[in-house]
């Protein structure tokens, strides 16, 4: 038997009871859950949810960026201070030899 060719003439092998689809429609429309019947709530709730998620994401990214900038500024200022102090110590500190000469010349 060649399935491709045979039985093609009669595709709908089952019938439905008389008036089935009309009755089905009426029965279904009466049994619809009332949640969406007259409200737009679901649609707008969906939009609000997306907007809230975007705002939250923006706040998180902003907070991470702000913290990073502050941390860099702190590290920079810390580094500057250390360098500055080292330089001061190098230029202005008096070693033992200089101190001896100074005291000898002063005849103290």
């Amino acid at each position, binding site marked *: 038997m*060649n399935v491709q060719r045979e*039985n093609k003439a*009669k595709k709908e092998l*089952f*019938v439905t009871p008389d008036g089935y689809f009309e009755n089905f429609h009426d029965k279904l*429309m009466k049994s619809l859950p009332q949640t969406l019947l007259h*409200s737009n709530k679901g649609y707008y709730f969906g939009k609000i949810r997306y907007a809230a998620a975007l705002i939250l994401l923006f706040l998180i990214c902003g907070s991470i960026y702000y913290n990073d900038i502050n941390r860099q500024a702190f590290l920079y200022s810390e580094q500057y201070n250390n360098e500055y102090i080292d330089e001061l110590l190098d230029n202005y500190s008096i070693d033992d030899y200089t101190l001896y000469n100074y005291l000898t010349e002063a005849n103290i």
Partner: protein
Amino acid sequence: MTKESSHTDDSLIISRLRDPETRVATFSFIVKKYSPLLYHHIHHMVLSHEDSDDILQNTFIKVWNNIDKFRGESHISTWLYRIATNETLTFLSQRKIDSVSLSNVESTIAEQIESDPYFNGNHAHAILLEAISKLPEKQRLVFNMKYFEEMKYEDISIVLGTSVGALKASYHIAVKKIEEYIEKKN
């Protein structure tokens, strides 16, 4: 109907579904338009009017409850087919769990079909349906959608999320299995 006009129709239907003033009337239109197609799609899988009726009702209730989630990225018909298919597969897997002696029931499928008051075919058709019922679910779906519902592979591919190549192979294997089953029966 061209693809462009179909998209326009879908956009119009979606916007009316979202408007509380026109929602019920639009949903009623969808039920009237798609019930027969979906009923036969389900019936080819479950082979029982009562079960098809239950699944069809569950399908439309699910559609109603998920109207807001439909973004219009696919055709409404595709979306409906997907929901109906999922509901049918869920029902079939549940029936497998519930039915302890399924093998005994399957062996008499042709007789059961012929005794169905809504069956409109002959003995050869009953044997054909019995052969189809022996296929794995996915192959059965592909075969029914191609053979009985005359859908294009491209459309079946969107509904089932399977490539066209895989569908063609699946249909080819299904036809071979059905032919072998019928040969054996004869």
